[in-house]
């Protein structure tokens, strides 16, 4: 155990230091200081950016930025440049906006996975306060004009990066409908009435308006999808048909009417980072005339490049990277 005396001693510091620090941080919050401005470096950066732009490298999308933050907070590591590049590659710019009664709601960008889709939605024109949580009173999302199986969607406030635009994440997931199976995806997203949650938990209605978008996007596969070789490997006999993609892992179990599996699923990357499964469906059950089959879909807590996997752990089943089909 490390020596804790210094941290304990910090607790006994005179209150004037604490007060000074709190006041200083409050006062400098939001102030952008420009220090040590290196003109040469700035010019060089502009030249590099110009050439990068010329060779057609995609700009970083808001959804990539969002998942880079998730990577830091949930994977507890700063995202690798290669992973960031991969997020850019699989993200799609949507760029749709609607202006209603002083507020512009935009669907900025998206990552569409096999069964899950993530959209960054922004609002401009509502007053922004740093410490507040904003939410829509009602919202709806539908992808592919059907609600087969179990559909989950949520629209959560992420925060405000720019001081102007509030950002939201729309997460959509269906356990049985494969979003990428059709030629094009028809998407409907609607949201109404923006509210603010005050510090003491009260709801304050800010805008009573509604926004609705209906649009199509091509459903070509942008994320990497792989199967797992189940021949000559030590997979648990109960787990089969494992399919791996950048957003999820799916598999089936068979042979009994047992309770649905409730296991931890993790992907350990070559650099040691651990990506975990965030949502695991309880398993769609079917009977093929001989045995019961359960299908599972588990979403990774952040989309990532599956070529960087060292191993996958599903409960007590270990899958090495050489078992992943290329």
């Amino acid at each position, binding site marked *: 155990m490390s020596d804790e005396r210094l941290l304990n001693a*910090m607790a006994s510091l005179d209150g004037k230091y604490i007060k000074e*620090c709190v006041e*200083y941080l409050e006062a*400098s919050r939001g102030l952008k200081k420009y220090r040590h401005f290196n003109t040469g470096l700035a010019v060089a950066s502009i030249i590099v950016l110009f050439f990068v732009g010329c060779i057609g490298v995609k700009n970083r999308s808001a959804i990539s930025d969002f998942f880079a933050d998730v990577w830091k907070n949930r994977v507890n590591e700063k995202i690798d440049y290669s992973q960031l590049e991969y997020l850019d590659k699989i993200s799609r710019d949507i760029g749709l906006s609607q202006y209603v009664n002083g507020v512009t709601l935009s669907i900025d960008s998206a990552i569409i996975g096999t069964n899950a889709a993530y959209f960054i939605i922004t609002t401009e024109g509502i007053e922004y306060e740093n*410490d507040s949580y904003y939410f829509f009173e009602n919202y709806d999302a539908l992808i592919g004009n059907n609600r087969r199986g179990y559909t989950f969607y949520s629209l959560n406030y992420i925060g405000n990066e720019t001081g102007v635009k509030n950002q939201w994440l729309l997460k959509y997931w269906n356990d049985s409908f494969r979003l990428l199976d059709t030629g094009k995806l028809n998407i409907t997203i609607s949201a109404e009435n923006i509210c603010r949650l005050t510090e*003491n938990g009260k709801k304050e209605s800010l805008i009573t308006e509604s926004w609705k978008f209906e649009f199509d996007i091509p459903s070509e596969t942008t994320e990497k999808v792989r199967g797992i070789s189940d021949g000559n490997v030590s997979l648990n006999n109960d787990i089969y048909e494992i399919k791996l993609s950048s957003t999820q892992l799916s598999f089936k179990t068979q042979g009994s009417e047992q309770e649905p599996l409730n296991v931890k699923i993790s992907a350990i990357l070559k650099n040691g980072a651990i990506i975990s499964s965030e949502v695991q469906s309880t398993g769609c059950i079917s009977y093929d005339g001989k045995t019961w089959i359960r299908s599972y879909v588990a979403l990774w807590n952040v989309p990532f490049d599956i070529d960087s996997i060292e191993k996958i752990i599903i409960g007590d089943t270990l899958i090495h990277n050489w078992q992943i089909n290329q």
Partner: protein
Amino acid sequence: MDDSKLIELFNARSELAIEELIKKYGRLCQSISYNILANSEDVEECLNDTYLSIWNSIPPANPNPLVAYICATVRNISLAMLRRNTAQKRKCEYTVVLDELEDILQARENVENEILSKELSGYIERFLDNQTEENRCIFLSRYYFLFSYEAIAQRTGLSVKNISVRLVRMRKALKKDLEKRGVM
């Protein structure tokens, strides 16, 4: 609402005191507790305990400055919970900060050599007095409030690299200072 008014509300046993306290310092308390515990449920529990503890202690306490009293209360309650939960070995800012400070004071087995925490606080205060206001705040942000480098950079408007360099320099200076005083 200023702090003296807030204390008046506590003295009058008005429930508005807690509401106003949360409004003014709720976010700060949440940050301190989360930096230590890194778990939303535990943080919520700690915040409830903090507000209750402040409600029970004022009056008779009449802390000045109030903000330091609140910070110390939430920090102590969160650390107590962390110690109760050590078996869970969560990775949080507290453990990272401990690793950073390990080099300054090596753990000693001999109890006689232990210096009193109060005495050490005095040395740190003198060290802080010799720093600029900005450096003092960066040092406290890291080692009192346990903010991450990124959070400090965001709040001060400096770069993460700059924060890191300043903290390394201050740690070295503190180590030297303590060596001079025979604490090491």
